[in-house]
């Protein structure tokens, strides 16, 4: 009987994994279709916009690591996004090297993530939300008032670089290839995070969210697990931020505002919290909506705010949260059918 339970659990986990992979594959397909259409029409503006959506989707994915897995709502993730963008811009202005910029961002984000994490992880629930909100707001003001970082103008004139990837070289100035590069990068991040969540550490994270007081009995300190998630979320957001100056050729304090953090949270909620792939859909949806509504009225925030509230009330698990169970049932059914036929063949 223990075996059959274990088999059933394994089967349902497999169905879950397949469903998520299908959603991820669909997203890539959707992005590639978009790219093909944009390429044929020779459109630069929408290419750049879609690349930005991917980058912001990556930040939303980082927010989901905290909200959906660790149960920590961050209202200040623009901080790490902006950190990555500024570090990358500063490095690129000195030495226009993709790998150097990414490497420097990784180091700085790890360090800052650790430092901030050690302090903030102590805050629980709403305190965590408020303190991340506060820190991001203060850093925004600090950057805005620091002349060395360009003050309110930010850093402009970041050179467009060529990105050597072993055999081929991608130019950031070509919207199509940089879109593809960003897509690959963000999907790699997704695969890595999805894998990470299946490791024992990732499973512990969920255990901490569900019942923090029990985790010590398993022999782990909950704060270490949460700290790992915090640092991971910091790194992912910063790496996505590092791509931003390559795309736009500039960074500004705007990136650090609450608007960015809030948008990331909206993307997570609309797309589906706790799914990792959902936030990417959320980013596509939000960016799409903004540009569509933006053609009619400049007051698009009202509509987005209303949509967000409706989603919180009626669809709190978001798009992916609504689709995933259907997919899972479909694949679970298929799997049990397959195992039945196998058994029949065995007889």
């Amino acid at each position, binding site marked *: 009987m223990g075996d059959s339970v274990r088999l059933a659990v394994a089967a349902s986990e497999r169905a879950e994994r397949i469903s998520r992979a299908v959603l991820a594959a669909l997203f890539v397909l959707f992005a590639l279709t978009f790219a093909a259409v944009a390429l044929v029409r020779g459109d630069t503006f929408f290419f750049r916009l879609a690349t930005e959506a991917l980058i912001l989707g990556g930040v939303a994915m980082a927010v989901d690591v905290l909200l959906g897995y660790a149960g920590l709502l961050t209202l200040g993730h623009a901080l790490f996004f902006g950190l990555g963008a500024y570090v990358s811009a500063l490095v690129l202005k000195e030495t226009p090297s993709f790998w150097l910029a990414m490497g420097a961002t990784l180091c700085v984000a790890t360090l800052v993530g650790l430092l901030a994490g050690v302090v903030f992880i102590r805050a629980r629930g*709403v305190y965590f939300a408020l303190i991340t909100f506060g820190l991001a707001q203060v850093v925004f003001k600090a950057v805005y008032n620091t002349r060395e970082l360009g003050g309110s103008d930010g850093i402009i004139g970041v050179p467009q670089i060529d990105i050597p990837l072993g055999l081929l070289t991608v130019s950031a100035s070509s919207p199509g290839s940089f879109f593809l590069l960003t897509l690959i990068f963000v999907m790699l991040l997704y695969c890595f995070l999805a894998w990470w969540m299946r490791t024992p550490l990732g499973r512990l994270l969920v255990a901490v969210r569900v019942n923090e007081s029990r985790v010590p009995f398993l022999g782990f300190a909950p704060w270490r697990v949460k700290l790992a998630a915090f640092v991971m979320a910091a790194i992912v957001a910063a790496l996505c931020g590092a791509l931003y100056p390559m795309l736009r050729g500039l960074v500004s304090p705007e990136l650090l505002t609450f608007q960015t953090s809030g948008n990331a949270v909206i993307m997570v909620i609309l797309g589906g919290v706790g799914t990792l792939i959902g936030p990417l859909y959320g980013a596509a949806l939000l960016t799409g909506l903004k540009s569509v509504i933006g053609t009619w009225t400049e007051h698009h925030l009202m509509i987005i705010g209303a949509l967000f509230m409706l989603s919180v009330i009626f669809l709190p698990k978001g798009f992916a949260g609504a689709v995933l169970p259907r997919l899972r049932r479909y694949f679970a059914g298929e799997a049990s059918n397959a195992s039945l036929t196998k058994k029949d063949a065995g007889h």
Partner: protein
Amino acid sequence: MHGGACMNELLESLQFIYGPQIANGLAIGMAVVLMALGLTIIFGLLDVINMSHGEFYALGAYLAVTLAGQGVNFWFCLVLVPLLMAAIGYFTERTLIQRVFHSKDRHILTLLLTFGLAIITEDLFKLGYGPNPYKPESPIPGASELFGIMLPNYRVFLIVAGSCIIVAVWMLVYRTRLGAMVRAAAWDKHMAASLGVPVERVYAGTFAFGVALAGLSGVLLAPIYSVFPTMGKDFILMAFTVVIVGGMGSIKGAVIAGLLLTQVQSISSLFISPVWSEPLVFGIMVLFLIVRPQGLAGRLGHG
């Protein structure tokens, strides 16, 4: 003789530099405390972080501007706006907060919901009033000398009125049966209900009260600061900091922390550029979170 000169210098700096700064800080502090009181009472009873509190503050200011445009006098606004805000708050609690209040993740869901409300409200301000700031006239122009310190009359009024309102709030919560109901429900809502306290209405009423306080501080501060769409966002961080340092859900804590932190901000801006006084205040909040995460004082209804 030399000592006398020193003494004189000290007195002069007190009179001309510190005095006005402390008094101005006190005036702003009153409004900060009123806003923080609204936040902390709502959290203390409902466990809800009201992210749209800043926008309710802005709404209070905008209502005052609008009513003044219709020829309504400032003193009448001071009464009318909180009443209007209370109605809006009551409606908000019944139609929005209650929808997600009974779910498991109500902390996060109510926070998100009020965040959505803040986005919409801010955009509505832009739609209705445009992005440019309004600067209402001071209802009490002029300045007078108090203890040798020159102070704008309106700020003196703000300090006096603010103190009265804070005392009134305290009396209401700690000296009336209505307040006892709120404190009881904040500790144990089931038991309070079983003694006949209409908990649902007390929840909505408390939310309305907190919102009315935010609106009131909007009306009071409008003549000092300008009225513009993002004014709530600029002010909310200070209010949150006060609530955290004072202890979430603590009335006493909010008053003490509100007055102290605005003094820190006000006096520190004599020595450092004002743009750095906000990081300083935030630094105090982080320090508190490390040393004393429960804040200065205990939560509403908890002893």
